[in-house]
């Protein structure tokens, strides 16, 4: 007798569709989507019914005023769906989206370990690199969908509440509808790119620890600390190595003519950081004894 026949295909293990189903029904996924839909609703409610709505200051739909020399963000936001979506992106890019990206990427392997499902996937056997590949792709897809949901929901809610006025910058220069859509897409895409660093960091942590909250929390805390460091002028050129230095480069997409320089650097930084972090995660996971 010889070995029994085997119906097994490496490519058939843990496909992206299967992993998406496994992840999408989780409560945290639902919460993430609800959050990014609730955020614009809350802001609309605050602007419409809040105490400042009738002082006539920045609430008007004229593209925002600059009373007291302050940058009236909300006033600008209420000039139409495009500006509203842009402002929601601005509100959420620094923290909310970082947490969501860190959650989708940081929780993904560690939670399998904590549920004891990781070992069952690996003995199925799902090859380790294939497991990470699928997990990373699905984490990125979910992050991107949440970002897209935020943009679309904000635009729709903003358009219903404030009309579809085109993108207007506080420095003057309104754009056509088509340009507005293009600029907003660029901004959203760039913000998605800046999420690569927290995403990669969270993914690495996810491989290093079996505690999902630890992986997500560590990544978020590291990003926050790096952003604090970025605010310290005395660090000088050292700050170029911090992710926060590139976090706001998307504003260049709002110029009359788009300036790509900073965004190109930001793209390169995030892409390289992501590649390095994921690379370390893969090498570590390759050699790890799975004891969870």
């Amino acid at each position, binding site marked *: *007798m010889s070995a029994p026949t085997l119906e*097994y295909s*490496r490519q058939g293990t843990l496909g992206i569709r299967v992993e998406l189903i*496994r992840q999408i029904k989780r409560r945290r996924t639902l919460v993430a989507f609800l959050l990014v839909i609730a955020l614009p609703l809350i802001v609309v409610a605050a602007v419409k019914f809040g105490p400042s709505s009738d002082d006539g200051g920045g609430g008007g739909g004229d593209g925002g005023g600059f009373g007291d020399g302050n940058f009236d963000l909300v006033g600008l936001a209420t000039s139409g769906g495009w500006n509203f979506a842009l402002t929601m992106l601005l509100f959420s890019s620094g923290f909310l989206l970082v947490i969501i990206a860190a959650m989708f990427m940081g929780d993904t392997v560690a939670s399998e370990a904590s*549920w004891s499902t990781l070992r069952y*996937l690996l003995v199925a056997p799902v090859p380790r690199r294939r497991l990470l590949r699928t997990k990373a792709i699905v984490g990125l897809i979910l992050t991107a969908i949440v970002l897209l949901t935020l943009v679309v929901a904000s635009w729709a809610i903003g358009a219903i509440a404030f009309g579809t006025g*085109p993108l207007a910058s506080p420095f003057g*220069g309104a754009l056509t509808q088509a340009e507005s859509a293009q600029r907003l897409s660029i901004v959203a895409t760039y913000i998605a790119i800046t999420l690569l660093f927290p995403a990669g960091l969270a993914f690495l942590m996810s491989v290093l620890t079996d505690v999902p909250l630890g992986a997500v929390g560590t990544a978020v805390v590291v990003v926050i600390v790096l952003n604090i460091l970025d605010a310290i002028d005395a660090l000088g050129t050292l700050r170029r190595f911090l992710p926060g230095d590139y976090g706001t480069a998307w504003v260049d997409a709002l110029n009359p003519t788009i300036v790509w320089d900073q965004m190109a650097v930001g793209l390169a930084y995030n892409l390289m950081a992501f590649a390095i972090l994921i*690379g370390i995660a893969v090498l570590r996971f390759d050699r790890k004894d799975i004891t969870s």
Partner: protein
Amino acid sequence: MGRTYAEYVANPRRLAVVASAMALGLASAAISTAHATTNPQDLVLDGGPISATDSMSVQLEADLYLPRTTPAPAVVLAHGFGGSKESVATEAEYLVDRGFVVLAYSARGFGSSTGQISMNSPDFEIADASTLIDYLATQDAVTQDAPGDPRVGFAGGSYGGALSLMVAGYDDRVDAISADITWNDLQTSLFSQSVIDSNVTGVFKQLWSGLFFSAGLTTNDGQVTDCGRFAPDWCAAYSTAAADGVLTEQARLLMAQSSPASITNRISIPTLLGGGQSDSLFPLAQVNANAEQIAANNPNVKVVWHAGGHDGGVNESERLRELNAQWFQAHLASGPPIDDSFEVSLVEASAFGGQANAGVALLSRPTYPGLFGESQRAIQIAGPPQQVLAPAGGVPAAISSLPGAGGLAGLAGGLLALPLPNQSATFATEPLTESVQIIGSSTITVDIASETPTQNVTLFASLRIIGGTERPILPQGLVAPVLLENIGPTPTTVAIELPAIVADVAAGERLAVVVGTTDQAYRMPPGPAVYSIALATDNLTVPITPMSATASGMPVWLWPLIALIVSVLIAVLVLLLRPRNTKAAARSDLADVPIAVEGLAKHFKGGVHAVNDVTFQVPRGVVLGLLGPNGAGKTTTMRMVMGLIYPTGGNAYVFGQPVFPGAATLAHIGSFIEGPGFLPHLSGRENLRLYWEASGRESSDPKLDYVLDIAGLGSAIDRKVRTYSQGMRQRLGIAQAMLGMPDVLVLDEPTNGLDPPQIREMRQVLHDYAATGRTVVISSHLLSEVEQTCSHVVVMHHGALIAQGTVTELLAGRTGVRLEDVFMEIVGEGHEVVTS
């Protein structure tokens, strides 16, 4: 071109700090000393005479920086107004690193140097500079061209820039200079006149002048005096001008003496001139005057219009510092030649991020076109005659620039420079049909009239860019002050030189000329008055200068390309570092053996030997028990067999194929290891279905009915797993292991949490399973369990295999009749063995 643009002028973030002190260099000392890596020699040198009546020398404090190899050419660094030798320390270190001897000194009246400020007077500050050259001539460390004539260059920005130009005109021992954001004529700088070919003294730039003057007031002993460290004649000149807005003849002479315009025709050495686009103090027109006057009989002049300036702008200090070093290397040492091309930084301003985030595109052309471009284009401009009010006392006044506020100035240009109602006339073009690149000054001709004859009409003209909304952009917040005398009801036609800017105006945008009556940075007549302003011709003349993008900036596409290459390299590296899984060759002799373990060992870090040299085989079609107390190494062995843990020695084979993580042969095994693992948010059925779909065996039959029957969960199979009891999960876990009826079933402590009837049922299931020719391996610390279920047994203890065989074999010839007794006999007394 010293420190000025580099550190405190061009860096908006830092400028926020500087603004409160004074833009010309107070605050940078503290910052730059932090960077000090070399220790300069601290010197006190004799300068020129203290005053016209006191021929004693002033004492100049200086720092001498020596490079690694000497003798080397020297560069003297002159600081900006309000600064000292410390404020050029960064520049000094940069040049020392590039092999120059650097002498940084505090001008008289600044730092700890003695003497009084005479604004680069030839008799005093310039005489001081000559004594520095005398000193360098005595130093062995400095290359000497001739006895008493060292190889020396001068560099500085603003006040230091003017000194560099002046000393180049007065002392022919200077070999090369670099002067940034400085004046050509102090009078036209501080009394600005933008009417072309006018001989009327311009509008007093009172805010800048006041800031300038107050920066020289601070005395070393902290005393408050009205003249501070200024020489009396300069103090008097300023006081008259500031108090009455009047320029006395004496002041006029003083300023002329201290202006490079007086000696530009004598400068025959290589001259690098920097101008700041964001500079309302010494605007590009001043730099242009220096450039054109010097270039008249000196072929070696390079002009750079960078994006910084006294008003802030964009920090280009690194590029300019490097340019500076290359300039001196080319002209003082044997560095590579540097061309004299005209370089312009085009700021691609960022609307939200302000200029801190702005990108800068570097443009160049071989020849310098001057302020009005290589050619001019007339663009039609329209607007009715308009009445404007010059308010009484000049308030409220428009705010175009914020002198000394640095980075805020750009903000002012963008946000605050809105023309005040009734105070300005606006003339605009139609939307441009094609884009225009404006590099230099545009001109416009207007008619000015006043119903009541007025002695002194002050106006401020500016060129604005109007985009899609009506909110115009005022480039760099620059306005062109206009002063006219004797305006009456009959219109007077004047041609106005608008501020020199560098800007891309896109097609569809419009240009507008706004002529206003107020600007808070300038002195205005007490008014009130009403003027009428009309276009004299319908032409706005803009400078056209074809420029080419230079390669010195990094092209945008290069960054993503680098990132892509790095990412690909990392991917390749990761691929190369894939663990080598096939150390062991496939074993054809074991092809029929479901599981074979040979010399398997696992030594954890710290010296714990979890498994030590374990060898056994699991024959086909049997139920084999892996027996041992807790901690015997059973689970570690199983994990190694499943490729979860790397063995430190030996190999495991499944049907002759070596085991490694992800080895296809593992698909022969269905397993249940150390408790069940399920996604708690999904139902039991969904868990099984998704596990099967993730297992790579989708093409075969999962035998779902069979395993569901074994799980025996009934309708609970469609409830979420998080609602299950421990026993339900246990049964679902065993069912999952049996999905697709694998050839080998490996179950670790399968009966945990099951009640006796379920255990009995399970036993039967496993017997039946083995009866189909499949193989079952059960690990357990429950001896009776193994005894009742298994035909074969492997006994482990302390990580080592201590017995193996059939249950019958082990029982044969033993005193006890139960496996428990056999086990006790083998391991000896004193070991805790759990029995059920």
